[in-house]
């Protein structure tokens, strides 16, 4: 599982834009448990944006698990 800096940067920016926070606030832990900005609706919005930006489709089970920046990065790396 190697990280791709381009994907990471682009994901971090997307998360920041959708959640309405500055990009430097999007740490690996940034997610539903740590950030009030991360609402369930925003999470759905983010999933759609990630899907269209990176050309992937998450399964129903994955949709429920995508509750932090880290989880998004992990799932994207595994594609």
């Amino acid at each position, binding site marked *: 599982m190697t990280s791709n800096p381009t994907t990471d940067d682009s994901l971090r920016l*997307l998360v*920041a*834009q*959708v959640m*309405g*926070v500055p990009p430097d606030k999007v740490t690996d832990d940034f997610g539903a448990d740590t950030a009030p900005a991360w609402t369930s*609706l925003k999470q*759905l*919005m983010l999933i*759609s944006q990630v899907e269209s930006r990176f050309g992937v489709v998450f399964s129903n089970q994955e949709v429920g698990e995508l509750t932090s920046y880290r989880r998004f990065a992990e799932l994207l790396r595994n594609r």
Partner: protein
Amino acid sequence: MNATARLREIARAVPPGGDWPSYAAAAASLDAAEGLRDAVPENRRVRIAVLASFTADPIVPCLRVEGARAGMWVDVYLGPYRQYMQELFAEQGGLLEFAPHVTFVAVDGDAMWDMYWAEGRPPAATFAAHALEPLMAAVDQFRDRGSGIVVLHDVIAPMSLAEGALAFADERSFSSCVPALNRELRARAAERPGTLVFPLADVVAEVGRRLAFSRRQHYRGHVTWSDRLTAEVAARWVGYAAAAVGLAPKCIVLDLDNTLWGGVLGEDGAHGIAIGPQWPGREFVDFQRQLLDLQRQGILLAVCSKNNEPEALAVIRDHPDMLIREHHLAGWRIDWEDKASNLRRLAAELNLGLEHLLFIDDSPHERAWVREQIPELAVPDLPADPSEYAVWLGSLPSLVVLQQTEEDRRRTELYREERVREQARIEAPSQESFLRSLRLRVGIEPLSDATMTRTVQLFAKTNQFNLTTRRHDEPTLRRQTAEGVWRVHTLRVADRFGDFGIAGAVVVEPRGEAWHVESLLMSCRVIGKSVESALIAAVARDARRAGATRLTAEFIDSGRNAPARTFLAQHGFGMLEDGLFARSLEEPGLEWPDWISPWGDERASVTAGVETT
């Protein structure tokens, strides 16, 4: 940089129809721009309410950014998920407190499809009535209590239906229900004041249904509209909101060569330019048709072109295939001066603010020059290919006319009369002899059903001669007059050159000893004719008859209403405190000018309440 320029600057980070994360980021920048909201003039702050049958949250940042692009600060009230009926029926709460300028009620095709299945596939006519009855009752409730205009959506089937080739003949098919619903919706909206139907089906057709709806998002989170449709709808809703508060363009200024016709007149000659029934030329005929459709709604057309005036006018007057003729034009500047200066002159001649002009020119160079010289003027990018002109104009979101009055239909004529009048003024030996020569007639009448639409429009659009720039809407005017809190009168003006129709209004609160002028406004077309003296004289007369001894008047500086401030000084009002002026009714200076003939029964005493005619 002023506040409007800052708004536009932030919006420029997102191209129109850009991706949703960019809209969200730009909306965050609006919030982060310190003091920006407060710096935006009151008349450019617009409140939009959104009530939807689906998750409409993503449209909020799009509305704010598209608003900023149009130089407005948009605040959005988003009703709770799917609670549009509850919100409209509520006797108190968020929506009413928000006091929206426009409320969009977006009930989508999926909601109708659900209802249709729940009712067991009813016949189209029954279904249309069932579906709309409660919705319209809710709209009526809100219109009685709330503010602003209400905009409903037409209905579009969420997908191609598997009802088959015979569905067209089956009155129980959903394919039959959709047009029945839309007919019923249009009819019911048309009979209600301030209630409109937004053509969502047109927007979806432009985007394409597969791209307009995102089924995966719809099922996952009931986010039915795709990012693309959301952005397109937001831009158009902002156009409606701008029109509702009087910020929509009032005049389209057109270039000639390669804009109204193909080719360059100076090089190709009158017989060489492209305009006519076949290509090349047909695309310009269609563009002119679209422009004339806008003109019919009351948007003025004018010309600003670098050409020799006699040659260009000869084409406009005599070319057999031109549709736009001299009598369609409110004014023109055809010479070799730079276009920014000519646009300023045209605006002055038409008595319009520069922000009310929209300039259309095929030359990117001219457009850039005008944008740089006059940042407040709207200069959209005309497509490079003339085949796209007509389509482009039809979908330009800012060209929205929400009300049409007799005055709108006659507007171009009114400007022609003004040119003749201006000539008389130049030739008259003194101001008073000029005013006498006009043979002015003025009528001051209680607000009635017949004058309501025009009066509401004046409240929405009048900027210069407006004491308080309060944008009263129809429900407010009706409620306040019915309760006797306000006496509202309209000003009707005519002179020997023509009829201005309803050109002003005054709202007075009769407070016993001291009557209070809550609003007083007048179309800039009748400024300089002393008719405002007749208007305030009528107020003074009624106040004296009722036993009052003083008049007070409010003034709110909007940055653009200096003429109204001068009016108070000229009529003997002194400042009591910031924004509050007063004068005694016992001192002279409020007489009806003797060069103005009273019209009809305006000297008769009037009663509070809206008269029904």
